[in-house]
């Protein structure tokens, strides 16, 4: 019997629902038989079971081996480094946010980190106390501040609405996650121009030792990564199917490939259409051209297809693109 690989997923918080949606979009629908339970399954991969945990606990469960893989925020992983946790995929493409240094808007003399260094020294020299910084990220904050020469500060550990700390008076500035900056602005805070500590998003992590020692775990993870990798590749492209009139498949192929945008991943696929006799004209035939184009090139590609006589073009999103090998999985094998 195959050993079941446990995938820890966030049960609540900002990335909980997006995680379920992301997996569903990859063809990996998560089923939770009982809403009160913390377990689930993914029917597409029978050897995978799901464990729901809080977003920080996902990391701890993977670190201690209760779950062998998990999805959590990159900020959580960087803030809680663990030798036995390896980042399998650092950019799942959702849950984007940044950990930033934000100061009161009324500090008009402070625009960047050198300014903040100067002000931190002012606090010490003029007010005989350290500048107080509210954050949930003591490790990353401390490293970043020290890297910018700020050595005298007091971190105020806080949970919940950190952005209110300067207004409430229990901190002078904050270091917190932001997506759009709206909440910060509403609380009269501004982000320093060079105050971005990390850009974070959801990531896939794994327990190094468990993956090294269990080929079955690694194989199940490979299947999961294949789905994710192929989906993410597919998202960047559209499939175009157009009917083009011409004398031969070779002639059509030449016309389509003349433009790099419509050349496709390898080249166009051309197949002849066999119409009824009354539609046959001047020794010309209809051909179906199938190509894959990058999202950003859809309209230029359409234009080109039209210029070579294409019509009735159907455009569909690409669900998956499986490459020869999954680059993410190959990368994982290197770091394991």
């Amino acid at each position, binding site marked *: 019997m195959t050993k079941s690989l446990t995938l820890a997923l966030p049960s609540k918080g900002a990335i909980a629902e997006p995680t379920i949606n992301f997996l569903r979009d990859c063809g990996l629908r998560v089923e939770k038989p009982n809403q009160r339970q913390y377990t689930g399954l993914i029917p597409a991969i029978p050897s995978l079971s799901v464990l729901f945990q809080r977003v920080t606990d996902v990391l701890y469960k993977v670190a201690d081996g209760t779950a062998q893989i998990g999805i959590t925020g990159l900020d959580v992983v960087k803030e809680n480094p663990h030798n036995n946790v390896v980042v399998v995929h650092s950019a799942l493409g959702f849950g984007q946010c940044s950990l930033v240094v934000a100061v*009161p808007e*009324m*500090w*008009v*003399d402070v625009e960047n980190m050198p*300014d903040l260094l*100067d002000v931190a*020294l002012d606090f010490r020299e*003029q007010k005989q106390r350290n500048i107080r910084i509210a954050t949930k990220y003591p490790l990353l904050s401390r490293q970043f501040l020290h890297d910018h020469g700020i050595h005298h500060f007091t971190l105020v550990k806080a949970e919940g609405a950190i952005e209110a700390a*300067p207004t409430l008076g229990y901190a002078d500035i904050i270091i917190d996650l932001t997506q759009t900056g709206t909440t910060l602005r509403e609380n009269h805070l501004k982000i320093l121009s060079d105050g971005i500590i990390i850009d974070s998003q959801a990531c896939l992590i794994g327990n190094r030792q468990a993956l090294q020692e269990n080929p079955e775990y690694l194989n199940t993870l490979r299947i999961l990564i294949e789905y994710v990798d192929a989906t993410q590749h597919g998202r960047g492209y559209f499939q175009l199917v157009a009917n083009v009139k011409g004398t031969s498949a070779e002639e059509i192929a030449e016309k389509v490939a003349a433009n790099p945008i419509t050349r496709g991943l390898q080249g166009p696929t051309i197949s002849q259409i066999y119409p009824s006799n009354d539609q046959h004209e001047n020794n010309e035939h209809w051909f179906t051209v199938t190509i894959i184009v990058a999202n950003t090139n859809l309209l230029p590609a359409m234009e080109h297809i039209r210029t070579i006589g294409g019509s009735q073009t159907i455009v569909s999103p690409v669900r998956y693109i499986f490459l020869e090998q999954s680059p993410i999985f190959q990368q994982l094998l290197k770091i394991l």
Partner: protein
Amino acid sequence: MLPNQPRRSQSELTGRRTTHILATLNKHMQLYGYNLIELPVIDSADLFLVKAGDQIINSLFTFERQGKQFALRPEFTASAADYFANSEGDAVVRWQFAGSIFDDSFHESNTNHEQLSIGAELIGLEGSLADAEIIAMSANGLDKLGILDTQITIGHVGLIRELLRQFNLDIRTQRFLLHHIPALNDADKGKQWIFDQFIDQFTLTQNQSGPTIGTYSEANSGASLTMGGRTQDDIMRRMRLKQQRLADRDNVSTAIDYLDKWCQISETPEKTFSYLSKLIQGNAGAELLLKEWREVVSLLEAHQVPLSQIMIKPDLARSWEYYTGIVFELHSSGIHIGGGGRYDELARLIGSKAGTPAVGYAYYGDRLINSLSNTNLEFSPVITIVSNNDDMVSATKWANQIRNCGLPVQILPKVMRNPLGTDDLFLENPTTAHFQTSKYDFQQIDLLINDLKRVR
């Protein structure tokens, strides 16, 4: 190899050298009136950051407990100054210290995060007498250890600070320049690099965004709101300071040129002092400091430190921010094995109301140990007791009697000591022992002990 000539591991050899160094230096420093003190291994990280700043932050071994940041000590000076500031003892103290210091920097060459540090602090006494005493004691201590090729390099941070005053720069700009002095002699950096860093770090571009002092003052007239612990006065004051720094850019450039000239000097005391006295002519404060510096060198001669060992280097850099006077380094065979200096401001920086005169030094203990690697230090011979019938109770009784008379003893089972060593004590039965060619009864153990002492 004979059983009574044990093989020594590297760790035992290091231990023997360490014991020798600690005992020799402890005795040496006691002759100057320095008492050994114990200082905490773990202390508030802030305490160490005050003194060390940028130099040490990346290698500080820190951890957090209940929201407070602690660190394993990276050196002794800050702890000693803190202890002095918070104790009600004598006005002048002479302390020596020895123990582990910790370094959390991770690079290939650093596999050992724990190092030995040995040194001294003289707190409460100012002037050349104290400076010379510390330098001489550190150099003479190396003599006592048999390290004879010591070179002493002496600089003076206080004199540079005094000279920088003529450029009317604010304290933070002065500190910046002092901190960057080593870059003047760095082929990849130099004067322009320092100036660019200054502009960059103090964000002094000409076309600054944001309101000017005038518009800010107008927009906020009459308002007294504060947020983030700063008042509008704080913000205005800093805006004025930034404006002042912008105006002082040319002065900073001139000051860097001046320091560059200063850094070219590296000579014998006689030549350097003669050159420096011309350079500072007319600056009364600087002349006074130079006079004190000369006195230090004269006192070093009185301390029997040969002038040939002394090199004057005005730009010598040692934690520039908080040293306030003489600074020095000790080198042996090109290896930096210690150093120190005067740090009168440290007590104030760590919370005392006033500054306290203080000067100190430290040896890099592990480098001292390495420098003694070719020195043959004998191990104290240990008497081995072997019992004929492995009667460990009797063997222990004999051993304790001998130990009580100050002789080191170990007990080994017979099976582990075959053949017997020529100087082993062999227990024939509980009351009879053989040593060399003689036989002793337990009642006559004093006789045995006398013979053991004689042989040793």
